[in-house]
């Protein structure tokens, strides 16, 4: 394959308008998932759960592969896998280190199960590949509705527990002292995360789900510490990556996920450099007004 052929495969925009009309549903699905990923991702970062996302996605993949094998709904299969993984992590992993080892044990087991089910499956190879790398072009109107409704439920749940969830994520000891049900919120969030992972897998696949649930929020945190700005940027980055990735992918002959992950990564790279430059300049928001200076000499009591 010559360089020209490769470029042609990556970018070619013949009949772009016609194709776009055909895949409108997919673009909407991408936007919904971007919104969800960016939103949930901010809490994933606050709670340091990046590894859990990966663990959940592997079991979700196993669930989807099983559904494919027995011929039931793949989305339902991946939801079941996700929720089982979330509950296992929630109830078996107490502290951070314990949690990580539970996830580390679950992850290869899930992936192994998934490969087993796919090996037994005798249908189209594209279906198999799609579970791992995403297949958003296959989204139809019914699926989009399901996606939108589930995403809406997740958003409403998060809005309902927003403040105590934030409190228990960033400052758990104080949250306990203030009477926040930290344990219950932890289980609830893992369930929310499980559902979000299962939905995201439909677009980017089990292997690349981190690009939706981690990278945008991590990028946002590189450039700001303000909770509101983090949220806005994270959602914007995720939507730009998914919708932008889908629109770019329409021009070529390749799967969608590399476009999404690459966009996501580029956004992160730009943010990381920006953050580093800013930090080096010492711009962290400190104001050194004459009257408000930190006292440096002891004061007699």
């Amino acid at each position: 394959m010559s360089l020209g052929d490769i470029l042609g495969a990556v970018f070619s925009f013949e009949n772009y308008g016609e194709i776009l009309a055909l895949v409108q549903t997919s673009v909407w699905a991408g936007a919904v998932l971007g919104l969800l990923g960016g939103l949930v991702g901010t809490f994933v970062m606050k709670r340091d759960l990046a590894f859990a996302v990966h663990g959940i996605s592997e079991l979700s993949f196993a669930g989807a592969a099983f559904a494919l094998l027995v011929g039931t709904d793949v989305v339902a299969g991946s939801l079941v896998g996700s929720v089982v993984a979330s509950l296992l992590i929630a109830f078996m992993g107490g502290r951070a280190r314990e949690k990580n080892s539970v996830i580390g044990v679950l992850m290869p087991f899930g992936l192994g199960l998934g490969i087993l089910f796919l090996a037994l499956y005798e249908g189209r190879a594209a279906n198999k590949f799609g579970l791992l790398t995403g297949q958003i072009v296959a989204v139809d109107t019914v699926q989009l509705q399901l996606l939108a409704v589930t995403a809406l439920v997740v958003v409403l749940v998060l809005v309902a527990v927003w403040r105590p969830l934030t409190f228990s994520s960033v400052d758990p000891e104080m949250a306990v002292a203030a009477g926040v049900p930290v344990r219950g919120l932890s289980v609830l969030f893992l369930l929310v995360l499980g559902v979000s992972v299962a939905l995201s897998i439909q677009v980017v696949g089990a292997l690349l789900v981190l690009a939706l649930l981690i990278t945008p929020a991590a990028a946002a945190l590189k450039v700001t510490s303000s909770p509101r700005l983090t949220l806005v940027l994270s959602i914007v980055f995720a939507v730009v990556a998914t919708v932008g990735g889908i629109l770019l992918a329409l021009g070529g002959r390749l799967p969608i996920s590399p476009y999404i992950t690459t966009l996501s990564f580029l956004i992160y790279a730009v943010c990381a450099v920006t953050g580093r430059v800013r930090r080096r300049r010492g711009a962290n928001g400190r104001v050194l007004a004459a009257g408000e200076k930190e006292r440096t000499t002891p004061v007699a009591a």
Partner: protein
Amino acid sequence: MIDERLIDDLWLSPRPGPTALDSEVMTRVADAPAVRLRGASLAFGARPLWTGLDLDVRPGEFFAVLGPNGSGKTSFLKALLGVVPLTAGTVEVAGRPVGRGEGIGYIPQQRSFAADTPLRARDLVALGIDGHRWGVRLNRRSVAARVDELLATVGAGSYARVPVGQLSGGEQQRLRVAQAIASRPRVLLCDEPLLSLDLNHQQAVSRLIDAQRREHGTAVVFVTHEINPILDYVDRVLYLADGKFRVGEPEEVMTTEVLSELYGSRVEVSRVNGRIVVVGLPDATTHHHEHQDPHEKEPA
């Protein structure tokens, strides 16, 4: 502000009943203990930390809890927070059974935040105002105004927008004070808040805590292993050691006789330049190694 439930409590109280006079009831409410323990005991396994503790901490009182490692100081505070249940007896904080966090402000040990914690100084303080409420924050402007007020109180205005992970230990503890007093608590529970701070910040933070109880009548329960930084403010002391305890003013408790009796060995207490110096404490570390007792460690 009078809490109606408190008045109910007084009417139901088995102690000398209140008269019908409103003014007298109000005086009594103001005098109602901020912390009340009756027959309180706490044990870990077979080892009692303390037993039969009856205690009233008055509003506006600065109450220090002292003792060696493993004596149950931190567990005492956790019992007041409702995190650790008592083995026997009852505990009430701000006139209510513990566990719901109402009326309580908590100042933890200084423990640094990760450098990339997505939280600025003002966000940390705001959590103390409404972090425990459900839903999203709708009254952003009034919360922001209250945060500014609290930051000014603790002298943290200049770093309001700095990520908490980039602040020094002393700056973080000032924010902890602001966060703890944000809900206008009746009781401030402080768990070694001066630990790992330098002398300036120890003074600054304890002055802030003292100001809060003087200006707002907040009771302060202050767990520490070192009384000197707060000696000027302390009204009474609870000294825990070896399953025994003593309550009283510092002059009564911090004496050679009392501490020797608590520890069961000769401990010399003297005063040098207004500081209390204790000599001859059983060395906690050596003690542990000699006995190899698994219960000796302070529970997490």
